[in-house]
């Protein structure tokens, strides 16, 4: 847990990277996490649990996370959730505002100080009434890709994943179903990185829960019928490393756009247009992750 501020020095340790920061700082000097998140954690007197949402650039991490958080605050399914601080609401507001206006939100910038962080207290409506503190950052796909290729480039990502208890790995099912091997290769690289981060000993399989989410599954409806079968066939490298190295993996299909159009103008730029929102399979991976944690 982040240490309480020292009366003499008025400093506070970042719960992500451990950097000592001035108490009045807005962002952590080490990893750029919002200090409001650290203060909230200290106030709660318990360390939050980190779920990381990772995947290739353009796979839809921001949209997935924004929808998930919005659904949680709308008490979807079996959940109740309370955002801790206005900064936590910004991500879902950004996603919902854009998609309801039928525009995809802008890409997450590479710079960690411009990422959205979300700190939520979540509980199940049925069963246990215990609230769980969850931190879910929206990492830029390019930054994650760079860190995976050249570890230590983005220390914030390494520190974050080092503290992660569970991961939701997003994979572009639309590309995979179209025959591209790129999603499979990126997922393979990502899983080797997570293996490196999570495995306590080389011979042991990773125990962290990993939810593999096949995104944009509206393009390939068979994903919804049988996500495991789809992954085994179309993402075979990912499937194999999951079998070999990860003990607790589940596959899900997800989509958030009910129909996709393309705006085409004289400039010949083609802009994808989310014609209407119809989220499917957004809550299920999160629910599974919480069950495993």
């Amino acid at each position, binding site marked *: 847990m982040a240490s309480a501020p020292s009366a003499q020095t008025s400093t506070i340790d970042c719960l992500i990277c451990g950097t000592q920061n001035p108490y009045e700082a807005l962002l952590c000097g080490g990893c750029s996490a919002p200090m409001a998140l650290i203060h909230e954690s200290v106030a709660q007197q318990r360390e939050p649990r980190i779920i990381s949402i990772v995947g290739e650039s353009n796979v839809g991490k921001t949209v997935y996370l924004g929808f998930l958080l919005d659904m949680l605050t709308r008490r979807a399914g079996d959940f109740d959730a309370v955002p801790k601080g206005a900064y936590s609401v910004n991500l879902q507001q950004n996603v919902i505002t854009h998609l309801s206006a039928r525009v995809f939100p802008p890409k997450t910038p590479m710079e960690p100080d411009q990422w959205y962080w979300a700190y939520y207290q979540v509980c199940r409506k049925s069963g246990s009434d215990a609230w769980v503190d969850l931190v879910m950052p929206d990492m830029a796909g390019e930054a994650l890709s760079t860190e995976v290729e050249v570890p230590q480039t983005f220390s914030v990502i390494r520190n974050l994943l080092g503290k992660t208890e569970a991961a939701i790995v997003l994979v572009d099912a639309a590309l995979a179903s179209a025959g591209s091997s790129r999603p499979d290769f990126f997922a393979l690289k990502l899983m080797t990185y997570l293996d490196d981060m999570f495995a306590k000993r080389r011979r042991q399989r990773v125990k962290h829960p990993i939810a593999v989410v096949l995104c944009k599954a509206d393009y390939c409806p068979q994903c919804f019928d049988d996500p495991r079968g789809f992954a085994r066939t179309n993402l075979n490298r990912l499937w194999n490393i999951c079998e070999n190295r990860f003990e607790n993996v589940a596959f899900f299909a997800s989509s958030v756009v*009910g129909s996709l*159009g393309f705006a085409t103008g004289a400039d010949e730029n083609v802009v994808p247009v989310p*014609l209407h*929102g*119809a989220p499917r399979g957004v809550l299920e991976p999160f629910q599974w992750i919480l069950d495993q944690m």
Partner: protein
Amino acid sequence: MALKLFTRKARGAIAMLPGRPAVRTSPSGRPVSGEYQPAERQALEAEPVQRLYQQHRFGVLVTERHRWAEDEEGRNVCGLAERRLEEEMALVPAGSVSMPTTLEDLPGSPEIDVEVGPFLLAIHTVTNECYQQFVDAGCYDELALWPEAIWPHLIELHDLTGTPGPRYWMDSRHDQRLADHPVVGVSWYEAVAYAKWVGLRLPTEAEWQMAASWRIKSEADVFRRLPWGDAMDYQRCNVWGTGRGAVAPVNAFPSGAAPNGVQQLIGNVWEWTASDFEVSDAKGRVVIGEMPMRSVRGGAYDTYFDTQATASFRTGQILLARAHNTGFRCALNV
């Protein structure tokens, strides 16, 4: 046609309340609990005119009644069919609609005004039970029902087991627990072919909006955002915010009906229309799909944004999309 089709009375045999337990369906549309329960095959009447009635092809019997003008039994069946149409369809009076021409659906956005003549619209969307008749009659092999352009694709219009039928059926049978649910997982072509088979047609986009916004020709010049008024009400329709999370029977949410009794224009399933989907974005760029698109209207049980489940919200689907949340209802000229 002398039909008494204008009434404010709620129709339908059973008044379903919004709180009725849903048959839970998976994201693919299949019931979650228990094994698939295929509907039994119905024995067909030997007499052709009786068979048409049995198959709910009331539109054929009424519009082609001259075929049985010399036959007393035929005339009687046609009379019965006319009464069934009176029960199952409602008159939408003449009026006008203002359809947004861009993706924005806000006051002041560009619109096009369209005059709509009177027509009849089905009170409910087509159910699995009704669509079963179409499948059982072998209509997927009846080329005359399908435009020639789609013939090469007919073989792809199969269910989960590879037999002809909607996307989420098995062995060409619907799950009998979903008999009174809207048929989903059908492409635009299947919707058009069914409507043709029963002697009806799909409504145009303007007709659909006319029915939902009820902007009839009157001095009041009323325009409704929703069939019941202007404010979203989760007790009156099945959208994401309702919390049901699954398709409901076609006669659930009766309080959301339009003034003429047409139900579920908002929510439950998107509805195919006969019209091309033609809009542009805020910068004037034309919006197209990967394939040609047709307009779908009304929103569905998983429509997340309330602003996308209104009388005037325009969106589209590619012609061959067989979505879990898209069905259709039929119309008929007066």
